[in-house]
């Protein structure tokens, strides 16, 4: 049974993790979470990203946004690097999200098969 007392211990754990991450994160990940995104399955994608980032300590933040404007390609995940360069991943699912993190965030290689360029030729 969870009690609010457990939260105190978790706070210390989170604090330690944040101290280890020096300065700003290398990447910013944004997930579209409007009606279109939610209906298309953006929630499990967002949850996977949050969990995997915490588990592996990737240097990135994960946030939500509204409708990105291409509802038929949801779930959409945007990755911004420190220079503000954006990569747009489309038709995402939890499995692709994991592969994207490993390739793009960990190894610095864009996962071409899932980008918007791969569907809009």
């Amino acid at each position, binding site marked *: 049974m969870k009690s609010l007392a457990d939260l*105190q211990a978790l706070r210390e754990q*989170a604090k330690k993790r944040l101290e280890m991450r020096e300065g700003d994160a290398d990447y910013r990940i944004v997930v579209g979470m409007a009606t279109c995104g939610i209906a298309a399955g953006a929630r499990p994608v967002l949850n996977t990203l949050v969990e995997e980032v915490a588990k592996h300590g990737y240097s990135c933040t994960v946030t939500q946004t509204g409708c990105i404007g291409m509802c038929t390609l949801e779930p959409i995940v945007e990755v911004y690097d420190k220079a503000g360069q954006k990569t747009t991943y489309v038709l995402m699912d939890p499995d692709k999200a994991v592969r994207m993190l490993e390739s793009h965030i960990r190894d610095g290689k864009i996962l071409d098969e899932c980008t918007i360029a791969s569907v809009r030729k």
Partner: protein
Amino acid sequence: MMQNLSMHVLDIASNSVRAEATDLHIIMINSTCKDLISIEVIDNGKGMDEEMIQRVQDPFFTSRTTRRIGLGIPFFKELAEACNGSFELESQVNVGTRIYVSMQKSHWDTPPLGDLGDAVVLVWCQKETNHIHFDYKTDANQFSFDSDEIKAILGDEVSVCEAEIMMWCKDYINQQIQVCEEEQV
């Protein structure tokens, strides 16, 4: 379409965040005695005038500019109609908005609850400075989640949006809902 009720909660409460609400109250009633499930979202956002209240119920209206149709509120209204329930939308400019949907609990088309803890926490993380209060009521029990209570423990250094905190809050809410449901039997 939304597969469960928590997705509607997330979607409708996101409208409140976009309407610059700082205070959100989400009330869910799950009553076997009254054969009723209801969801109510009350915010102190910028509100809507009479004309806009009518227009948001039309799928071919949205306040956003990224696309031309808005389905969140029409979906929510359709849910009430499909499940023998009712839909209420009240709003006042600069005061806030209240949206309410009820369903017949035993109705064939009433969707499952879904992951409510997740929905509440995701709404909070859209703007973590917001105050969120979530009430879950059954015939015999009640559970309240208040973001201020969590913030008092976390302090300023750790955000609710940090993964471990987010996941804990979700599990905590879902566990308390479970307790409300079990004690009833």
